[in-house]
């Protein structure tokens, strides 16, 4: 067993510097690496490029980094829940690259899989395709999209073991698996860190080979964005 365990979030984020590019898992506030985001806020690193499907809300998730002006550029598919984000973007204080959600996922997966670029029909004929190579396959037009390049991928899983094997829960899975191994260093924070041998090999969603550092997150708020219920 190659042990990936680190003692704390501080150790997990060692080497983080101004100007770096981060991939951060999560969909909305679901499955975001809460502890690592808090540590990035504490470290005060700035001029960051963040690749994340959403940008959090005003006072949680990546919204915390936006609030402190630590992010220079966001690469996301949907940022509608964050007023501070919209304000910074419309004022030109924040650089934003809006990317179709499936393209965003595939740009992560391509980086993980060592594929430099791929063709997708998403965005053909729209401003997303401007300046990009297009090509026809079997009578349909496609846009060439390149794999992401990032310094750190920071993901959140439900359970993990010391070998870095990960298991996700529910829709908190989302972008997290595609980001594992898609950057120079992958950091995984988990709710439960178990000894090796406890996870069934058949049940592992992401093998530890894609993870360099793993730690148990101290606290998870798991905020719900839209609490929708029905009466009993």
């Amino acid at each position, binding site marked *: 067993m190659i042990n990936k365990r680190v003692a704390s979030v501080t150790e997990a984020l060692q080497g983080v510097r101004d100007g770096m590019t981060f991939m951060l898992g999560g*969909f909305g506030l679901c499955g975001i690496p809460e502890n690592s985001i808090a540590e990035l806020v504490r470290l005060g690193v700035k001029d960051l490029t963040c690749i994340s499907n959403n940008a959090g809300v005003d006072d949680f998730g990546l919204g915390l980094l936006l609030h402190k002006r630590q992010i220079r550029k966001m690469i996301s598919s949907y940022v509608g829940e964050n007023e501070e984000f*919209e304000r910074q973007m419309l004022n030109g204080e924040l650089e934003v690259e809006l990317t179709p959600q499936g393209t965003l996922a595939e740009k992560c997966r391509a980086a993980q899989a060592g594929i430099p670029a791929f063709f997708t029909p*998403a965005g053909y004929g729209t401003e*997303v395709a401007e300046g990009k190579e297009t090509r026809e396959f079997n009578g349909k037009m496609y846009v060439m999209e390149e794999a992401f390049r990032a310094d750190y991928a920071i993901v959140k899983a439900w359970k993990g073991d010391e070998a870095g094997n990960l298991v996700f829960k*529910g*829709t908190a899975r989302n972008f997290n698996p595609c980001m594992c191994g898609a950057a120079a260093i992958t950091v995984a924070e988990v709710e439960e860190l178990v000894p090796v041998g406890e996870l069934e090999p058949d049940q592992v969603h992401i093998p530890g080979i894609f993870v360099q550092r793993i730690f148990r997150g101290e606290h998870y708020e798991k905020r719900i964005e839209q*609490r929708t219920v*029905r009466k*009993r």
Partner: protein
Amino acid sequence: MLDKDGIARRIAKEVKDGYYVNLGIGIPTLVANYVPDGIDVEFQSENGVLGMGPFPYEGDEDADIINAGKQTITTLPGASFFDSSLSFAMIRGQHVHLTILGAMEVADNGDIANWKIPGKMVKGMGGAMDLVASAENIIVAMMHTNKAGESKLLSACTLPLTGVGCVKKIVTNMAVLEVTDKGFKLLERAPGVSVEEIKNATAGRLVVEGDIPEMIL
């Protein structure tokens, strides 16, 4: 004239047995409430779930189980969770049979705009560009006119496009229309709405052939 639920009820009739369906945010979400009994369909949410069920009972909500609108949901027996890349493999790979989504504008050549108002509203496209570029069968659910009373069915979209030539069918509060080579073909009228009223509310080319039946809801 239909309300939002009326539009959803009419669209529910387009959902066939055995379909995997992706519902967008807004009116499309309501379609799930009107799928007729005896039809087996599964709803896909692009954040990574197939087999979405109703909202949870109070107290049962789980922050880790949400839909693409970030609402807490439940799953039905036979449901599955998956990552975002596999989710869009289902969509791009045309394994999802029907996509229902909202729009700000639709053009009579099937172009759609629904993600951006330059300088005013920039929320992003989410999964809409992947969905419209890939789905064989796209139904747009929207009001026929905007809040200013202007037609949303145009000869060309004025807003930045989400996809080109991809919309097949549109269900509005006034009509059911099909996108053809000759423009919007009027298929049905909403209860109490005349062909004349639809003509006046449609800025793009409108094809009216023969008697136009009223929708059956």
